[in-house]
């Protein structure tokens, strides 16, 4: 192991690459997944086909999925990002549906009684109240994505997996441990942060709705 002063630039780079892959993937999955979830709540017959497709994608092992994507994406971070988007979609779509479903029907009725349009009800009532559940989905996507992204180092994506592969290649357990600890700590950190956000949102949710409607 080398000293902290030696080359923090490279180390930071690996961590940032890791965060970037997972971050972009989850963001894209949110942009696609939330509207899909909203659509499903309106058109219930879509739930089975969409959620089943996402579940099937979810069972595909990561090394296999990276491999299958390479002919389309080339090597580098792209196959990793695409794979993580596909994996994240399931939890995000599912939790969007669950989040909206969890909103008290009386609350939605009240909003309707106040003369809100469907779009207003969605943006002002259903989504804000369903948010904690959606954030719970994001948390799962992020935490699991951080683990999966280590394998992506094999397809040239960079990130903390590099340390683990280097460790295997040079028979250097120190490097493996460093890669594992850093990945694990990153996952725990993300877990903690998003869990906190969930709790804050839940607290907000319990407050009277007037504030949000004023």
């Amino acid at each position: 192991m080398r000293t902290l002063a030696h080359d923090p630039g490279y180390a930071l780079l690996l961590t940032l690459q890791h965060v970037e892959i997972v971050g972009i993937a989850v963001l894209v999955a949110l942009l696609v997944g939330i509207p899909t979830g909203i659509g499903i709540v309106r058109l219930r017959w879509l739930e089975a086909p969409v959620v089943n497709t996402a579940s099937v994608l979810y069972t595909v092992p990561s090394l296999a999925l990276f491999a299958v994507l390479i002919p389309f994406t080339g090597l580098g971070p792209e196959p990793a990002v695409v794979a993580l988007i596909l994996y994240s979609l399931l939890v995000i779509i599912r939790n969007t549906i669950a989040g909206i479903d969890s909103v008290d029907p009386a609350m939605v009725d009240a909003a309707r009684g106040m003369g809100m349009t469907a779009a207003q009800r969605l943006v002002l009532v259903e989504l804000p109240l369903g948010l904690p559940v959606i954030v719970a989905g994001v948390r799962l996507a992020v935490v699991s994505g951080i683990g999966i992204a280590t394998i992506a180092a094999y397809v040239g994506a960079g990130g903390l997996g590099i340390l683990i592969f280097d460790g295997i290649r040079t028979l250097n357990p120190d490097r493996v441990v460093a890669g594992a600890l850093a990945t694990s700590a990153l996952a725990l950190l993300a877990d903690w942060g998003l869990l906190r956000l969930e709790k804050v949102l839940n607290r907000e949710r319990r407050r009277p709705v007037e504030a949000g409607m004023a």
Partner: protein
Amino acid sequence: MTDALAFIGYIRDHPDQFRQLFLQHLELTGVSVAVGLAIALPLAVLASRVEALAKPMGWISGVGQTIPSLAILALVLPWLGIGFVPALVALTVRAILPIFLNAYIGIRDADAAVIDAARGMGASDAQRLFLVEIPLASPVIFAGVQTALVQSVGTATLAAFIGGGGLGDLILQGLALVDLPVLLAGAIPVALLAMAADLLMGGLRRFLVPAGLQVRSA
């Protein structure tokens, strides 16, 4: 499209190699989950009995879940070297965590009233465990095993990095030579295997778990 189906041709042309790798994959997956279950279940019972152990064990398995599988595989190397057995050990370690977590929670949350009733009927500790708590926890335990099995099918592909064999060999060979049919001859069967494992365990659960305990949909 013809390209995408060329993997079937590859399997047909290399039946012995494919059969061997496929069986290795099944063995890695099946044995790791079976051994994992044998280790995790007693640990879960222990955690449910000894209050002081429950918290640290839950914490360890929670944190353990965040350690990448690849790292577990790599850390086994210095002790056990390369090949099938080290891969199996790493996969077993990986399988223990979800089974333990589910089993512990299932037993912990078994209905206290039912357990009291069993105690009232004079059931011994062992009887209570095997006749009441474990059956009550069975849907949750099953979910854990299902998870572990699907996960193990995927993680077993990583065995190809350390000489453990399995279908990951074909994926890595296909990647090394950018040979799509070879790559897909590994990747597609693995994906199908994972789905099959999921369906199989789901079916087994419906079949084995007592009707009254089946989780009704919300």
